[in-house]
C-alpha cells in the first residue's frame, strides 16, 4: 500500500510548516525504529508502536508490541480508520485526511506534546535549598515570640489586674502567674503561696510589711517606741531580713550587717545604755550581768545591769559557799555514813525540761538530804513559813506534855508522870504542861533559827524573844537569768562540763555571779568571720530582733499605713 504523510510543525510565531512524504509498504508502520515506514523520533514512542493495514481497500490501525494508541481520545488496540479520525501515537497526533475505501490513505502527523526542556523540568523538580521547603525563620520567630509573650507576660499581668482572668484558673492545677514563681516557699507560707498577690500587692513595688502583718499581728517590733524612735529603722522592712522563695526552711539573714548596720555605731545615733557591737568575735562588749539588789528602803529587790568586769555582787539573801560544797575531799553525807561524798553539780541543779535553763533550787528537793530540818530524832520542821515551824513545834511538845511520861528532870511533874487513861488534868496542871511545851518549842526554835539549821543559809534576825517569839528571815531572790537579753541554752552545751564555764569550785560566797565572761565563750565561738576551729556565731544566734515588750505589730492594724511598720510608720504615730 502507499500513503501520503504530511508532517506538521507549528511555529512559535504562528503558522504551520508542512513536509509531505509518500510512503509505501505492506503496511504503514509507525515507530521510533528507523526501519518503520513512518519514523517518529520522540523517545516516548515505542520502537514499533502501531501499523496501518490495507484490507481490501479498507484501512485498519493496530497497536504493536503492547503499546497503546488512542482512537478519537479513546484508548484502543485496533480499529477501522475513517476520514477525520484522530489517532494518538505517543505524543503525536495522527489525523486521517482520507481513508475512503479504494482511495489512497492520506494523513498528517503532528507532535502535539512537546518533550519540553529537560533542564527546566529537572530544576523545577529539584529543591536544592531549605528556603524553598516551606520552613520559615520569620514565621516561627513571630509564632514563638507571640506564644512566649502571651503565656508568660500578658497572661500573668492580665490576671493581676483582672479578676475575671484569675477566676478562669480557679479549678486549674496552676495559676496564671505560676511561671513567675522564683523559688520554693517557706513551709509556713505554702498554704496561701499560690496567691502571689497575698504578698505582692502592688505592681513594681517591693513587698510591704502590711502584707506580713495581715497574719503576724502578735509579732513584736524591734524596740518599744517609748525607748527608741523606730523611724530610725526606716529602710528596714520585714523582707530585709526574712527572705522568701528560698526553700521550705524560711531564710532569715544571719550576716553581721543585719544588726551591725545600726549597732556598730549605735551610741552615736541614739541615747542608749547599750554598747556598740558588730561581731561577736572581735567587736562585742563584755557581758553585763543582770542581778538583783535588795533595796533596804523599799524592802524590795531591784534589778541592775553590772559589767562582769566590775565584779557584780548579787544580794540573793542566801548564804551559800559553792567551794565548800564542791570540796575535792568530799563531804559527810547521810547516805554514805562510812565515807565522804564528792558532790556533783547535778546533785542540786536540775535542768528545765526544755533544756534551756536550770530549775530553781528547791530546799525540800535539793538540800534537805544533807541539811536536815530535824529537831529531834525522826522529827523535822517544815521548810517555809516561820509561823508553821513554831506551831508545829508547839503542837509536838504540847502533845508530848499532855501524854506525860517525859524523861526531863526539869519538867513539871505532870509532864514527867505517866497518867492512866481517862485520868483528868486540873487547870493548873494543864497550864503547867502547856507552859512547858511553849518553853520547849521556844528553845528548839531558837536552836533551829539561830543555831544549827536556818542561819546556815539564811540571814536570821530575832525581833522578839518572849513567846511567841518573832524572827525575820531575809528574803531570798535568785535571778532567773543573768543574761536575759541573750538566748543561751544549756541543752546545746551538753558536751561541756559545767565547770568549764562556771567557776564554782573557787566561789566562796553566794554574792558571786558565776557566769563566764566573753573570753570564755570566745574559746569556741567566733564571729561571722570564718576562723579555724571556731563556731561561726552571728548576732541572732544569741539575740532576738523582735524584742519590744509592750507593743505588737498588730497594734497598728486599722491605721492607714502605707509605709513600713517596723520603720517609717512609727514616724506617723509621732
Amino acid at each position, binding site marked *: 500500500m502507499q500513503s501520503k504523510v504530511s508532517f506538521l510543525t507549528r511555529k512559535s510565531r504562528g503558522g504551520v510548516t508542512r513536509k509531505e512524504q509518500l510512503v509505501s509498504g505492506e503496511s504503514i508502520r509507525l515507530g*521510533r*525504529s*528507523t526501519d518503520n515506514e513512518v519514523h517518529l*523520533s520522540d*523517545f*516516548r514512542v*515505542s*520502537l514499533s508502536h502501531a501499523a496501518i493495514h490495507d484490507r481490501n481497500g479498507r484501512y485498519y490501525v493496530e497497536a504493536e*508490541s503492547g*503499546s497503546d494508541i488512542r482512537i478519537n481520545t479513546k484508548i484502543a488496540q485496533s480499529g477501522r480508520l475513517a476520514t477525520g479520525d484522530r489517532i494518538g501515537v505517543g505524543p503525536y497526533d495522527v489525523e486521517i485526511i482520507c481513508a475512503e475505501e479504494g482511495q489512497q490513505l492520506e494523513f498528517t502527523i503532528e507532535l502535539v506534546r512537546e518533550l519540553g*526542556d*529537560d*533542564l527546566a*523540568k*529537572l*530544576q523545577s*523538580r*529539584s*529543591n*536544592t*535549598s*531549605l*528556603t524553598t*521547603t516551606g*520552613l520559615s*525563620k520569620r514565621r*516561627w*520567630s*513571630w509564632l*514563638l*515570640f507571640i*506564644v*512566649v*509573650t502571651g503565656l*508568660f*507576660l500578658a497572661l*500573668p*499581668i492580665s490576671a*493581676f489586674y483582672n479578676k475575671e482572668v484569675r477566676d478562669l484558673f480557679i479549678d486549674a492545677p496552676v495559676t496564671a*502567674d505560676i*511561671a*513567675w*514563681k*522564683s*523559688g*520554693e516557699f517557706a513551709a509556713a507560707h505554702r498554704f496561701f503561696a499560690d496567691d*502571689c498577690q497575698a504578698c*505582692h500587692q502592688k*505592681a*513594681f*513595688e*517591693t*513587698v510591704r510589711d502590711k502584707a506580713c502583718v495581715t497574719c503576724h499581728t502578735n509579732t513584736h517590733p524591734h524596740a518599744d517606741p517609748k525607748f527608741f524612735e523606730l523611724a530610725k529603722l526606716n529602710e528596714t522592712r520585714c523582707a530585709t531580713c526574712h527572705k522568701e522563695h*528560698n526553700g521550705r526552711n524560711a*531564710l532569715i*539573714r*544571719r*550576716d553581721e*550587717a*543585719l544588726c551591725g548596720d545600726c549597732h556598730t555605731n549605735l551610741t552615736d545615733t541614739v541615747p542608749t545604755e547599750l554598747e556598740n557591737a558588730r561581731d561577736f568575735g572581735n567587736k562585742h562588749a563584755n557581758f553585763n550581768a543582770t542581778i538583783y539588789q535588795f533595796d533596804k528602803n523599799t524592802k524590795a529587790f531591784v534589778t541592775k545591769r553590772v559589767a562582769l568586769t566590775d565584779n557584780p555582787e548579787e544580794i540573793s539573801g542566801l548564804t551559800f559557799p559553792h567551794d565548800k560544797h564542791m570540796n575535792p575531799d568530799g563531804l559527810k553525807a547521810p547516805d554514805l555514813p562510812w565515807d565522804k561524798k564528792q558532790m556533783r553539780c547535778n546533785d542540786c541543779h536540775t535542768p528545765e525540761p526544755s533544756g534551756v535553763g536550770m530549775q530553781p533550787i528547791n530546799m525540800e528537793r535539793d538540800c534537805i538530804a544533807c541539811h536536815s530540818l530535824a529537831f529531834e530524832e525522826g522529827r523535822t520542821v517544815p521548810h517555809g513559813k516561820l509561823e508553821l515551824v513554831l506551831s508545829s513545834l508547839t503542837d509536838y511538845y504540847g502533845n508530848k506534855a499532855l501524854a506525860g511520861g517525859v524523861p526531863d528532870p526539869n519538867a513539871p511533874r505532870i509532864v514527867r508522870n505517866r497518867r492512866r487513861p481517862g485520868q483528868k488534868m486540873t487547870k493548873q496542871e494543864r497550864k503547867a504542861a502547856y507552859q512547858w511545851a511553849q518553853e520547849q518549842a521556844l528553845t528548839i526554835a531558837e536552836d533551829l533559827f539561830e543555831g544549827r539549821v536556818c542561819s546556815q543559809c539564811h540571814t536570821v534576825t530575832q525581833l522578839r524573844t518572849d513567846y511567841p517569839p518573832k524572827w525575820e528571815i531575809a528574803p531570798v531572790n535568785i535571778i532567773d537569768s543573768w543574761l536575759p537579753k541573750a538566748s543561751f541554752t544549756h541543752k546545746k552545751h551538753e558536751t561541756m562540763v559545767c565547770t568549764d564555764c562556771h567557776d564554782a569550785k573557787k566561789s566562796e560566797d553566794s554574792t558571786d555571779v558565776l557566769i563566764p565572761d566573753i573570753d570564755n565563750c570566745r574559746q569556741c565561738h567566733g564571729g561571722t568571720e570564718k576562723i579555724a576551729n571556731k563556731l561561726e556565731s552571728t548576732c541572732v544566734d544569741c539575740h532576738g530582733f523582735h524584742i519590744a515588750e509592750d507593743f505588737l505589730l498588730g497594734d497598728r492594724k486599722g491605721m492607714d499605713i502605707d509605709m513600713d511598720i517596723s520603720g517609717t510608720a512609727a514616724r506617723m504615730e509621732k
Partner: protein
Amino acid sequence: MHQSLLIYSKFRYFKFSVLLIVSAIIAYAIVDPVDGHNGGTWLGYTLGGVSAFLILLLMWFGIRKRSYKSSVGKVEGWLSAHVYLGLSLIILATLHAGFEISWNLHTLAYFLMLIVILSGIFGVYAYLRYPHLMTENRRGRTMGGMLTEMAELDRECRETASQLSDEINRAILDCIENTRIGGSVWRQLAGKDPKCATLDAYTRVKKYSDELSLEHSDEERRLLTLLSNKLELVQRARRDVQFKAMMDIWLYFHVPLSFALLAALIAHVVAVFFYW
C-alpha cells in the same frame, strides 16, 4: 585577606570574653550574699544586666549584617564578637542564676538561651567545616552547572537509547522524569534519595541489556556509561545540597528560638520587677 571569624583582629573578642568570664567568676567567688547566690543580689542584678545587654547586642547582629551602609564596625568583627560574647553568656547567665533551676519562666529563658547558643555552636562548626567540603565536592562547578550537565546527559541518554528496546527507553524516561536533587528538609539533610531514579534506571538498563545478551551493544555500553556518569553527578549534587542544608538548618533553630528567648527575657525582667 580572608580571616577566620575566630581569630578576627588577633582574638580581640576572645580576649574580651575571657576577661568578662574571669571577672564574673572572681566576683562570684568573692561575694557571699546573705541568701546565697541568686539573681536578686547586687551581683545577680549586675550579671543579669550585662547578660541581657549582651543578648540584645547579639540579636542586633541580625540587623547589622543586613544594613550594608552601616559603618558601626565591620560585619566580620560583629560576627567574631557574636560568637565569643555568645559563648561567654553560658557562664555569665549561669552565675547570674546562681545555678538555680526550677520549673518557671526564669529557667525557661535560661534554657532557651542555652539552646540558642548550642545551635550557634553548631553554626560555627558548620561554617568552619562545610565550605571546605563543598569546594572539594563541587570541583569547580556550581549547582546550576551540575543540573545543566545532568540535563545534557539526559539528552545524550535519550538519543543513545532511541534505537534500543522499549524497556530500556522506559527506564531512561523514568530516569529523566523522576530524578530529583534535594527535596524535603529531611531529603536535603540526608544527602541521599532512597528511591533514586537514576540508580534505578541504571540497574534496569543493566538488567535488560544482560537479558538480551551478555555482550552489550555499543549503544548499551554507551548508555550505561552515561547513566553511571549521571549517577555520580547526582550523588555529588545531593551531597552539595546536604552541605548547604547543614550550613543553613541551624539558623532555623537559632533565629526563631532567639526571638522566643527575647520574649522570655522581656517577660523575665518584667516579672522580676513586677513582683519585686
